[in-house]
C-alpha cells in the first residue's frame, strides 16, 4: 500500500509538466521559440532564460552500481526567466531503484543572477539554491563533498528517512568565444544541520556543429546540434578538502535544439575513479514556452 501511494505521488508530480504543456499550447495560445541550449546536464553556463519564458524540462539518469541494483532517477524542472538578469527554477525529483521501490525524493528551488550588464572576457553568474530532499535522492544534479557510489546502496525505505535541507551556492564563470562555450562552476553547499561545508566543481566546453544558420527552416541542420563535454566531481569538505574519497565523472554530450522549442539532450557519463559509478546514461527533453509570463498576467488582467 505505501508503495502504491508513492507511485501515485510520483505520477502526480512528474506528469504535471505534460499537463501544463498541453494546457499552454492548446488553451492559452502559447508561442514557442527555438532554444539554443548547451548539452550540459550538470554544469551551468552564463546564458539565462529569456525574460517571460518558461522552460519545462524532464531529465533522466540511469545509473549502474557495482555492489547493488541499478536505478533510474528523474526530475522535472520549471525554469522561468523573471528578468534578463534573473532566472528562477523549481525542481521535483524522484527515483526508482530496481528491485526496491519508487520514491519521491524532494524539491529544489534555485535562482541564478547575472550581476554584470554586458558581456565580458569572463561572465560571472551567481547561483543560490535551497533544497529539501531526502537521502534517497539520486539525480546527481551536482557532485559535492565525499559523494561516492557506495552512498547509493542504502535501501530506499531507510534512505528516505534521512532529511537533507541544504543551501547551495555556485559561482559560474563562463565565456562564449568563436562559437565555443567554456564554463567553470565552483560549488559550495551547507546542510542546514550541523554539518561542514562541502565543495565540488563542474567544467564544460561545447560548440555547435555548424556556425552559420541555414537559409531555410530545418530540423536536422547542423547548427541545431551542439556537441560538448563536461567533467564534474567532489572536492571534499571544509575539514577534509581535496580529492581523497571523492567521485569524478567525464561526460560527452549532444544537444538537439529544434526550431519548434524542443531540446533533446543525451549524455553518457563515465566514472573516473573507483569511488564513482562506472557508467550512467543521462538524457533530457525540454520545451520552451515564450511569453508565458505575459499569458499568465493576461489571465488575471480582465478584458479591456
Amino acid at each position: 500500500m505505501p508503495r502504491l501511494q508513492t507511485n501515485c505521488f510520483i505520477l502526480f508530480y512528474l506528469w504535471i509538466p505534460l499537463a501544463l504543456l498541453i494546457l499552454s499550447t492548446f488553451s492559452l495560445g502559447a508561442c514557442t521559440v527555438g532554444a539554443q541550449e548547451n548539452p550540459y546536464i550538470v554544469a551551468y553556463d552564463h546564458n539565462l532564460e529569456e525574460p517571460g519564458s518558461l522552460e519545462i524540462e524532464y531529465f533522466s539518469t540511469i545509473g549502474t552500481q557495482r555492489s547493488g541494483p541499478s536505478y533510474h532517477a528523474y526530475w522535472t524542472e520549471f525554469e522561468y526567466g523573471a528578468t534578463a538578469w534573473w532566472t528562477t527554477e523549481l525542481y521535483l525529483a524522484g527515483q526508482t531503484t530496481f528491485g526496491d521501490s519508487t520514491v519521491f525524493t524532494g524539491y529544489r528551488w534555485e535562482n541564478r543572477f547575472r550581476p554584470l550588464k554586458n558581456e565580458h572576457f569572463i561572465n560571472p553568474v551567481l547561483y543560490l539554491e535551497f533544497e529539501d530532499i531526502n537521502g534517497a535522492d539520486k539525480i546527481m544534479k551536482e557532485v559535492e563533498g565525499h559523494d561516492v557510489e557506495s552512498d547509493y546502496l542504502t535501501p530506499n525505505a531507510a534512505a528516505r528517512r534521512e532529511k537533507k535541507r541544504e543551501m547551495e551556492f555556485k559561482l559560474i564563470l563562463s565565456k562564449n568565444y568563436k562559437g565555443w562555450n567554456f564554463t567553470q562552476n565552483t560549488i559550495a553547499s551547507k546542510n542546514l544541520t550541523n554539518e561542514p561545508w562541502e565543495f565540488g566543481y563542474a567544467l564544460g566546453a561545447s560548440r555547435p556543429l555548424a556556425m552559420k544558420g541555414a537559409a531555410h527552416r530545418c530540423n536536422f541542420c547542423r547548427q541545431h546540434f551542439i556537441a560538448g563535454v563536461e567533467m564534474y566531481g567532489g572536492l571534499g569538505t571544509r575539514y577534509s578538502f581535496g580529492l581523497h574519497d571523492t567521485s569524478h565523472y567525464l561526460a560527452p554530450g549532444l544537444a538537439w535544439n529544434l526550431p519548434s522549442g524542443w531540446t533533446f539532450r543525451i549524455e553518457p557519463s563515465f566514472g573516473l575513479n573507483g569511488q564513482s559509478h562506472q557508467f550512467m546514461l543521462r538524457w533530457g527533453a525540454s520545451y520552451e514556452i515564450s511569453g508565458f509570463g505575459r499569458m499568465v498576467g493576461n489571465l488575471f488582467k480582465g478584458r479591456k
Partner: protein
Amino acid sequence: MRLTTSVAISLLIIVNSALVLWAQEGSKTKEPTTVYDELKKVPEKYRAKENPLPGDLQATPAGGVLFEEHCEECHGKGAVGGKKAPSLRVPEVQQATPGALYYILTNGVVRKGMPVWSKLPEPQRWQLVSYLKSLGVAGPASDSAKTP
C-alpha cells in the same frame, strides 16, 4: 515541525512571487526615454566594426530564419514591434551601423529586458544583422519603444 515546514515553504513561494513581480515592474518603470538610446551608448570600437558577410547571398535569408526562431516573439513579425519589444524598422535602428546592432545583439540590454544573444555563434549574429539591415524603415516608432 510539519507546520513549520509548511509555513516556511509558503513564505518562500510568496517571497519568490513578490520578487518576480517587483523585478518585472521595476524593469518597466525605470525607463528614462526610449530603448533606442541604447544604440547611442555603443562604444566607438564596436560601432566601426564591419559585417564580415557582405557578399554572402545566404546571409539575409538565413538571418530571416534566425529572426523567426529567436526574435519574432518579442519584436513582432517583420520586426515591426511587438507587445514586449520595440520596432526594429525605425530610422534609429536602420541607420545604426552593423557593428552597433551586432554589439546590442551580443550584449543585450539586460536591465531593460533584452537578453544577451552571445550564445548564438558570431556568424549567426552577423546573419541577423544582415537581415535587419535589409528590412528598411516602416512607419513611425511604436509606443512599445518605451517598454521593451
